[in-house]
């Protein structure tokens, strides 16, 4: 009855050998190529350092003005602009200005990287059912696998710092924009697409004149989700050396500093709310043409 009592696993030695050889192989790989890969990401690193310095070194009133202007451009709503100004002033008053700027910097870069990778991939996916079948489960894994698990190889390969942090954030934050771009393009009205075809549109013309504009509300929902998920990764990214609001949160967790954790946590929430409202309002404005009613 031993067979039923204990699962017939591979045995401790075999398992250890398997794990060891995988670890060894990856370590070899990272020894061999780690530097080259790091070098490949160097321009990105320089850019991130430069961008973070730019935000932290700029005079704070100017930054608040810029945020307020961006909020106005995006949302065209006075309450949202006021909320933005109040939030940033409060963040400054409570001494979190520099960390907040660092967080804004990495979130912005991460969002641009995700858009730059995610939208083209989503477009390709919408073109091919086979690619969709391959990519969808990969996205599922990226969204559900505990972040710490993919932090291990990333850190082994690139050490700790901004770039591995950015990669970790992007792995977690890129799936929604890929999914929603793919979905948005697939949902484009077949009849409008047929009309584009009947007028002799090339593939590119269909994409630029019809598919992307009509998928834009969905694509924008994806951008919004991506920003939110990137913010959610701030604390975890700080574990591998990304500066920002995550660092004090982490310190608060390990030392049981309630106030410190709460303050920085709320700052992240404030950023999230601002980004969310502004990007949602912007998304809504993109759909203005969908409103009916005569004689505007």
């Amino acid at each position: 009855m031993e067979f039923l009592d204990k699962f017939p696993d591979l045995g401790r030695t075999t398992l250890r050998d398997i794990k060891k050889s995988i670890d060894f192989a990856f370590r070899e790989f990272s020894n061999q190529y780690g530097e080259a890969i790091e070098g490949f990401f160097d321009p990105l690193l320089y850019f991130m350092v430069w961008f973070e310095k730019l935000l932290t070194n700029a005079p704070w009133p100017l930054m608040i003005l810029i945020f307020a202007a961006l909020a106005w451009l995006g949302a065209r709503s006075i309450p949202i602009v006021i909320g933005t100004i109040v939030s940033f002033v409060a963040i400054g008053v409570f001494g979190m200005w520099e960390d907040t700027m660092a967080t804004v910097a990495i979130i912005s870069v991460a969002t641009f990287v995700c858009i730059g990778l995610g939208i083209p991939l989503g477009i390709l996916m919408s073109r091919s059912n086979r690619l969709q079948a391959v990519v969808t489960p990969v996205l599922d894994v990226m969204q559900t696998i505990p972040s710490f698990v993919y932090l291990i190889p990333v850190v082994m390969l690139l050490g700790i710092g901004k770039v591995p942090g950015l990669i970790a954030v992007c792995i977690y934050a890129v799936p929604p924009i890929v999914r929603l771009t793919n979905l948005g393009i697939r949902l484009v009205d077949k009849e409008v697409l047929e009309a584009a075809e009947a007028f002799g549109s090339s593939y590119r013309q269909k994409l630029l004149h019809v598919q992307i504009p009509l998928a834009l509300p969905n694509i924008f929902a994806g951008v919004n989700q991506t920003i939110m998920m990137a913010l959610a990764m701030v604390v975890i990214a700080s574990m591998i050396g990304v500066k920002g609001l995550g660092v004090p949160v982490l310190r608060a967790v390990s030392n049981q500093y309630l106030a410190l954790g709460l303050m920085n946590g709320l700052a992240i929430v404030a950023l999230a709310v601002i980004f969310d409202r502004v990007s949602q309002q912007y998304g809504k404005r993109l759909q203005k043409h969908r409103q009916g009613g005569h004689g505007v």
Partner: protein
Amino acid sequence: MSDIKVSIKNLYKIFGPNGKDMVQKVEDGATKSSLQAEHGHVLGLSNVNIDIPARRIQVIMGLSGSGKSTLIRHLNRLIEPTSGEILVDGEDVLAMSDVELRNFRRNKMSMVFQKFALLPHRTVIDNVGYGLQIKGTDKAEMNERSQKWIDRVGLSGFENNYPAQLSGGMQQRVGLARALATDAEILLMDEAFSALDPLIRNDMQDILLDLQEELHKTIIFITHDLDEALNIGDNIVILRDGAVIQQGSPQEIVLNPADDYVRDFIKDINRARVLDVSSVMGPGSTDSGLELASDVILELAMPAMIEADVTQANVMRDGAVIGMVTLAEMIGGITRPVTKAEDQVTYR
């Protein structure tokens, strides 16, 4: 008869994995239902042969499922045929490469859709200019030409509205203007007015006929509405189960329906509005003093006779008498006939 613009020859479309193999079965007499039941393939079009004259309105009609929308999509190859030939100005559409086909669609054949298919994110003027933009026309010329067509279809003042802000009839005028703006010689209209309510539909038919008087395009018009077909069609093709049942002028179809299906179709139409005096006249001449042109429809001819207080009239064409018509013949024409002397067809 004018020259042939579009020629459809032995066209088959069979939906299913082995469409090509099924053509032979259809040629051997398989019907739509037997093909479906025995081979799991759907017969879309079956040996369609139509010659479409230039600068005329060719109506293709049939009930839903008769293959008319499938047929019109073959003309610009939105759907690939299973076998057959489509010649436009003698050029084989099916032999065109992708680039040739795109140029053909851009310059030669444009299309109006049942559900308008406008771009919701573009204003009226940008929608009308869509075909021109695809061709690479520069913005200024595009707007100028679009504006001309917007005025022509009666939408001046709505240039900067979005489609969602317009009524159905207005949206379809945008669709029509968009199709006309490319200056294509051939206009495909897929149930273009079917989604509109009856009054608007009549308006749109009038707009189309007005435009046609001036533009002389080759228009291929799909409809399931016989009144519409008779109103605008110079020629009518009737489809059933993907096969052509009858083709001819409206008069020929009303006077000599090919079978019970067509007979069913025409049973409720206003015959007085379709038939003209030449189609019911007899030989000879009369001295009643009333002269009617041969293409006057009975609906107008009968009141004219009553007003002139005569029961007979001469039928004129090019200034000569070509026959005479009596009030009784006219009444006979608009009555649903039980027997008809010319061809001895009896039906009820």
